[in-house]
C-alpha cells in the first residue's frame, strides 16, 4: 500500500494525513455527541415546538 501511494510525490503523507484528520474530527464529534445529556437533548430537540413558550432556564 505504502509503495503504491509512494508513486506520487508527497501523496503518501497527504493521504495518511487526510484519514488521520478525519478520524480526529469523527472521534471529537462522537465524544461531543456522547457527553451531551439526555435532558439537554430533549430540550434542544423540542426547540421548534416550543417557540411560543418561555425560553426558560435549564
Amino acid at each position, binding site marked *: 500500500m505504502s509503495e503504491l501511494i509512494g508513486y506520487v*510525490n508527497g501523496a503518501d503523507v497527504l493521504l495518511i494525513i487526510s484519514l488521520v484528520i478525519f478520524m480526529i474530527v469523527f472521534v471529537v464529534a462522537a465524544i461531543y455527541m456522547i457527553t451531551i445529556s439526555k435532558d439537554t437533548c*430533549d430540550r*434542544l*430537540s*423540542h*426547540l*421548534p415546538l416550543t*417557540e411560543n413558550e*418561555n*425560553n426558560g432556564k435549564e
Partner: protein
Amino acid sequence: MQKEQFSYDNTIVRNFAIATMVWGIVGMLVGVIIATQLFEPAMNLNLRYVTFGRIRPLHTNAVIFAFVGNAIFTGVYYSLQRLLKARMFSDVLSKIHFWGWQLIIVSAALTLPMGFTSSKEYAELEWPIDIAITIIWVVFGWNMIGTIVKRRERHMYVAIWFYLATFLTVALLHVVNSFELPVTFMKSYSWYAGVQDALVQWWYGHNAVAFFLTTPYLGLMYYFMPKLAERPIYSYKLSILHFWSLIFIYIWAGPHHLLYSSLPDWAQTLGVAFSVMLIAPSWGGMLNGLLTLRGAWDKVRDDARLKFMVVGITAYGMATFEGPMLSLKNVNAIAHFTDWIVSHVHVGALGWNGFLTFGMLYYIIPKIYNTKLFSTKLVSTHFWIGTMGIIFYAVPMYISGFTQGVMWKQFTADGMLKYPNFLETTLQILPMHMLRAFGGLLYLTGVIIMVVNLAKTMRQGSLVRNEEAEAYALTKEENAPGATYWHRWIERRPTQFIIMAFIMVAIGGAVEFLPTFLIKSNIKTIESVTPYTPLELAGRDIYIREGCNNCHSQLVRPFRSETVRYGDYAKAGENVYDHPFLWGSKRTGPDLSRSGDETGVFRKGAEWHFKHMWDPRSTSPGSIMPRYMWLYEDNIDVAALPAKISAMRTLNVPYEEGKEDKVEAEVSEQAEAIWKQLQTSEKGIEQQMLAEKGIAVDQNKEIIALIAYLHKLGRDIHPKENSDNQTALNNK
C-alpha cells in the same frame, strides 16, 4: 424578570416565498423548453438567444439560485426568527438582501441568453455579477449573524448550524472559484488553467450541491419536519454527529467529477474514498428526518404536506446513496457523460429540493396569512402530479443513460466499435428524451397548481406583517460558559462555531489544492503544446459564448472505447493554457478534444464544419444539434483580441511582447488559409448562403474562427508540419 415584547418580520418571508414561486415557474419552464430541444432542435426557433447551449445554464441557474435560493431564504427568515425568538437583525438588510438577490437573478436571465458566460458550470455568471453575489451574500450573513447575536434563546438549534455552514461555505466556494481576470465589462478569463481550473471548478460544483442544495435544506428539514409532524426530531445526538461529519467529508469529494481525467490519481482516489464515506452522514440526516415520524405515520396518510416531506427526504436518501455509487470508478466509467447523471441530479433537485420547498410553502403561507390552505385537495393533486413528473423524468433518463453508456462501449466480435457513429447512440435515446420532457411538463403543472392554491390562500387571508411575540431576554450569566458542557463553547457562540466550521470545510480543499498547485510533477507540461493563435482564441471565446461545452466534452478517458472513437486520451499538459478549462460534463454530442488531431480518426475538414454548423442535419442526418446561422453573419471581434492576448499573458500564457500589434495580420493570414480550403473543397457554399438567407460569407466571419479553434484541439499532441500554416503561426 419582565418578558420582552417584539415581532417577527413576515413581510420578508412573504416576499421570498413569492419569488420562489415565480422563479420556480420560470426556471422549470426553461427546463421544459430545453428538454424539447433535445429531440426537436427547431424548438429554439433558430434564435441564438434560446439555443440549448445558452439557456441550459439559464435553467440551472434559475432553478438552483433563483428557485432554491429564494426557497432557502424563505425558510431561513421564517425559522431563524422563531428559533432565536428575535426579529431579524435589520429590516433594511433584509430588503437589500431580497432586492439584491432578485436583481442578480434578472441579470443572469438577461446575460446568459446573450452569451455572457464564464463557462464554469453553476458559476457561469460574469465577473460584475459575481461581485454582486458576494456583496448580497455578505448582507445575508450579516443579517443572520446579527440576529443570532441579539437572540433570546441561548441555544442555536441544529437547523441554525446548517444555515451558518451554508453561509460560510458558499462564500468560500464562490470567492475561490470566481477568481477571474476581467478583460471587458462582460468578459473574463479564469485565473486558473486546465487541470487546476477543473479541480477548483468541481470542488466548487460538487460543494454547491452540498452547501446550497443540501445543508440549508437539512436545516429546513430539521425545523419544518417537526412542525408538520408535531413531534421533535428523532435524535438530536444523531444530528450533531451527522452535521460535523457531513460538512467535513463533503468538501473532499469534488474530484469524483474528474475520474479518469488527467487530474493526478491520488486526488481522484481521495475524492472516491470520501464520497463513499459520505453515505454515512447523509443517511444519518435522512433517517433522522424519516424516523421523526415514528408512531405518527398515520398523519402522512391525511396530510399531503407530510407526503411532500417524506418523498423529498426519501429522494435525498436515494440521491445520496447513488452519488457515492457513481463515484466508484467502475460505475463512473459507464455513467459519466451520460443521461444517468442528469437523472441522478434531478432525483435530488425535483424530489429533495422541490418537494421540501413545496411542503414548506404549504406550511408557511397559511401561517403568515393567518388562514387555512385554500384547498387541501389541490395540495394532494399537486403531490401526485409532481410525483408522476419525477417518475416520468427519472426513469427514462436512467434508461437513456445506461443505453448511452453501454452503446458507447460496445465492440463487435471483430474488435470494432459497434456504434462508431456517435449519432446512432443519440437517435436511440430520443424517445426517452420525449418522455423526460413530458415528466418535466407534469412537474411544472404541479407547481402551477400550487401557485394558484397559494395565491387563493393569500387572498382569503391577510398578511400578518409583524407577528407579535414575547420572550425573556438572555441574561449575562446565561451567556457565560461557566460550568456547563464543554461543547456549548461552540453551540452557544456563533463566532466560535463559524471558526470551527471554517476549519472543517477548509481542510479538505487545502489538502487537494496545495499539492496540485505547488508540486510541479502533478501537472506535467508537453513541449509541443503551444498557446492559441489570436484567431483560435477568438474561436474559443465563441465556443464558450455558445455554450458548446454544455453538450460536448473535451476529455478523452483512457478507455479503448474512447481512444478508438476519438483518439489519444487526455493529458494534463495539453490544457495548461486553457483559461478556463472546457472539459464539460455531458456528451449530448461527441467529445471534441481530438477534432484537430491530424493523425487521428476524429478530425473533420474545414468544409465539413462549415456545412455542419450551418445545418447539422446536412452532414449528420437526424442530429439534434441546433443551427448556428449567426456565425455566418457576424464578424470576428478582432478589435477585442489585443486585450485578450494581454490578459492571457497576465495569466502566464507565454505570448511574446508585442503580440498584440500583430493580431490583425495573424488573424487575417490564418483565416485566409481556412477560407482557401473552403473555396477549394466547397465551391458552392457561398452561393448557397446567399440564396438561402441573403448572407455573403467571407473569411472575417465567426465561423472561420470557430473552425480554427476546433482544428487546434488535439493538434499539438500529434503535430503535423505544414498544415494550414497553423502550427507555424502558433510559433510566431
